[in-house]
């Protein structure tokens, strides 16, 4: 028994940490059935009659993933939204969560999905770390990060954020495991790996069709897989059929999405933000659009934009790179300037204030995560590729994967819509905030698992193979 405890004490500690923190999550936020809607909530449940796997589901206002949740829990009398919050117009609507039939099941499901997703991700991270203390610390930090108000409160809001975060974390959890297995198994992947790959694919698609900004990431994943297949050194250690097949299917799905998005007119919502934020205030930008046939009246310009807007806007960004880069840099602090949902009010009890204060620590209101996650991520990649152990390479690929995914998401979401950048970019700013904690832990794990006793005594650089 003592021997067992000596060998596996960290597992008991991790179980204890998970139980304590899940209990904290379940008991710290009041009645989990209370919910609040927003200006956009009705647009989801109004689509529940549309078949999920149909062209129409892709050409209407909302993508089908989140609508699916509303379909599953539709009450007999249909949804009736009573509590609607309008943060931009504080005199209208409410800032109090309420018990609303049908929606209660949705928010409870969001909460459980969130808890499952974060615990799953934390356990996957811990599984691929070496040092036992670091494993425990990683679980504590990841679950603290997730169960504090900046993330947990989204579970009560009838918007896609909560589901989107949770699916993203499940996808990342699968990714670590798949990378580790592929590095071990090479081309001869086991059935369990294929099963995990299939599970990853389903979760990824669900996530991608949660929001338009998520869907565009399909193209990035296709590009990533194609690069891996093209480079001989990675191709020879990869199941080409599986990777190529996934890339091909994702590409087809992306093309269908792009065609549907173009037909849907959803782009016009973003166009209005871009026009008033990045085009109309700048004479040279307006002239660029006029030169390419945009009518001068706003309503006619909107009609023109439905067909030509996206392409011309992209050309404008390329033509004015200084504007693009300046805007990107100047607005970075603004993107990170909030970290808590703005839709409902929580009574600031002493305990809640503590949680918010600690939440500020974990989810900084500062653009630091953009650079710090990038630098620490690159350090993880550099440190991992310099050594040969499979577990270490897993983290290198994981860091590359996260950086590529998250930074592309940021770039695409930033330039795709000038309005509401804080909320629209949370899909990227949240993982960036997470990475500033995750990557130092991984670096510490590398350092602590690197035997120092046999190191060179002088301070010259060690030989690099």
């Amino acid at each position, binding site marked *: 028994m003592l021997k067992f405890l000596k060998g596996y004490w960290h597992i008991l500690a991790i179980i204890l940490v998970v139980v304590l923190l899940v209990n904290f999550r379940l008991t710290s936020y009041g009645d989990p059935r209370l919910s609040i809607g927003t200006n956009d909530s009705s647009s989801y449940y109004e689509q529940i009659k549309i078949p999920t796997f149909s062209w129409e589901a892709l050409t209407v206002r909302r993508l089908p993933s989140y609508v699916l949740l509303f379909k599953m829990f539709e009450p007999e009398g249909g949804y009736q939204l009573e509590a609607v919050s309008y943060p931009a117009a504080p005199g209208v609507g409410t800032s109090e969560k309420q018990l609303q039939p049908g929606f209660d099941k949705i928010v409870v499901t969001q909460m459980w999905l969130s808890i499952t997703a974060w615990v799953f991700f934390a356990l996957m991270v811990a599984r691929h770390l070496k040092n036992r203390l670091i494993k425990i610390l990683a679980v504590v930090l990841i679950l603290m990060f997730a169960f504090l108000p900046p993330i947990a409160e989204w579970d009560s809001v009838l918007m896609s954020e909560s589901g989107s975060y949770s699916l993203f974390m499940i996808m990342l959890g699968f990714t670590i495991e798949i990378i580790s297995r592929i590095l071990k198994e090479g081309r001869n992947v086991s059935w369990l790996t294929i099963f995990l790959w299939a599970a990853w694919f389903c979760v990824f698609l669900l996530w991608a069709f949660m929001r338009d900004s998520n869907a565009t990431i399909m193209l990035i994943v296709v590009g990533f897989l194609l690069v891996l297949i093209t480079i001989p050194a990675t191709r020879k250690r990869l199941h080409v059929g599986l990777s190529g097949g996934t890339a091909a299917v994702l590409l087809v799905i992306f093309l269908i999405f792009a065609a549907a998005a173009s037909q849907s007119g959803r782009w016009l919502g973003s166009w209005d933000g871009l026009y008033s934020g990045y085009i109309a205030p700048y004479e040279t930008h307006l002239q660029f659009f006029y030169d390419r046939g945009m009518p001068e009246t706003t309503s006619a310009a909107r009609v023109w934009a439905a067909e030509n807007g996206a392409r011309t806007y992209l050309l404008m960004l390329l033509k004015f790179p200084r504007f693009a880069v*300046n805007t990107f*840099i*100047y607005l*970075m*602090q603004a993107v990170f300037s909030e970290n808590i949902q703005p839709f409902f009010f929580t009574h600031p009890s*002493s305990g809640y*204030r*503590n949680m918010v*204060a*600690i939440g*500020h*620590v*974990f989810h*900084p*209101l*500062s*653009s*630091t995560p*953009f*650079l*710090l996650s990038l*630098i*620490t991520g690159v*350090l*993880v990649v*550099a*440190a991992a590729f*310099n*050594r040969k152990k499979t577990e270490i390479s897993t983290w290198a690929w994981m860091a590359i994967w996260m950086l590529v995914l998250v930074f592309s998401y940021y770039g695409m979401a930033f330039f795709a819509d000038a309005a509401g950048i804080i909320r629209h970019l949370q899909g990227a700013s949240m993982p960036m905030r997470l990475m*500033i*904690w995750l*990557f*130092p832990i991984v*670096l*510490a794990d*590398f*350092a*602590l698992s*690197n*035997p*120092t*006793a*046999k*190191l*060179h*005594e*002088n*301070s*010259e*650089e*060690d*030989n*690099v193979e």
Partner: protein
Amino acid sequence: MWNKRLSDYWHFPIIIIIFLVLVNFRLTFYGDPTLSIGTNDTSSYINQIDVPTFSWKALIVRRLPSYVLFFKTFEPENGYELKAVSYPAAPELGTKTKVHQAGFAHIAINQMRLSIFAWIFFAYIFIRHLRKKILKVLAAFLIPFFGFLPQVAEWDSIMMTESVSFSLFLIILGISLELIQRIKREGKKITWFTWGLMIAWFGFFVFWAFMRDSNANTMILMVFLFVILLVIPNIRKRIPVVPFIGVSVLLLGLFVVYALAANQSGRWMGSWISVYNDFIEPYPTHLQYFYERGMPADSDKTDWVMQYGARTYLGMMISNPEFMVKTFIFWMEDVFSENIQPFFYTPPTDAYQWMVSFGNMLHPISSVPFPLTLLTGIFVIIKAFSGENHNDQTFGWMTILLLLNVYGLYGFSFFGDSGGLVRHLLGAVMPMRLMMWLFPIVLADYSLRRSK
């Protein structure tokens, strides 16, 4: 042979180029370096230049002597005449524009020179102790860039202690890193050069300590650290005992003198008023605690506070730990809520906005550096002392010294004066922001080292 040399030392020219480019940027980016601006407090330094530096009086007047020494050194023939004074709390008064002011020009320029030297010196010493060339290059860029952004550089134009205090702290840190490495190598028989470095460290530390009251309090922390090193047999047998005892005794003596002088000076009254307004008066239980210990309820409290205020306040804090911890946590975000000097205005050109944006990334307006620096620092310490290679412990000892100093300074300043928290805590906040970037580099350096 040349090829081998090139492959061994390719990072040297790159680091030199990085330093030159960044120093050039620092010298040219901020306009005329002779321009300066004063604040509400500046005149209090000028008014003390006739007080002898090494006298009891220098310790019991309003300002500690180190920064006054700066004003003494550059005093113009006709004395100082402060024209541009900024009052951020009362924007309609004074000015927000730097101007050329005789005498102050020398101070502003020398603050800038000292700052450039300190950042390059610290960067050089830091990279000297890294093993991986690519990380040396990264640190060579990151450290001076951090120091040359508006969040640090603009303090050089302000006639306040911040600029010099930052610079001296970095010089102390650089010398500490070098000293630790030398003592690890030389053991009990240290060379004359190490002796010289130790004396330099002591000189800079005392100079820094007597820059501000909050700095001076860290002398006791250093004494505490040295005594622990001397008490643990395993460490004592590997360090030169005499200089360590000497420095500890001298620092303890200086601290006692400082504490007695501070008590007599009445400087504590300014802080007392803030502490009373924020931490005592709004809470009936806290007020009651003071009344029970003899604080007069309505008459003038000055005499009582001068005699018993500090001790009773400390007792109140200890008997209300929940209040202490909550206040500490609730106010943490406020402490980090600013990162740029509030005294003068800089026209927001494109380039300046770029630098401010980069500055916001490197100097987060968020409390994240507090735990992240602590966490990564602890990782460095654990790693450094978990191996058998003593050379690996250099960063471990530096981290212990740094964490003790910086978090001690934060604690002292936080509870020592609740007024002007953001500026008063900058001495701790700036190094926390810096170390948040450096500790991951140290961890990566440890990870990249290879077994034979």
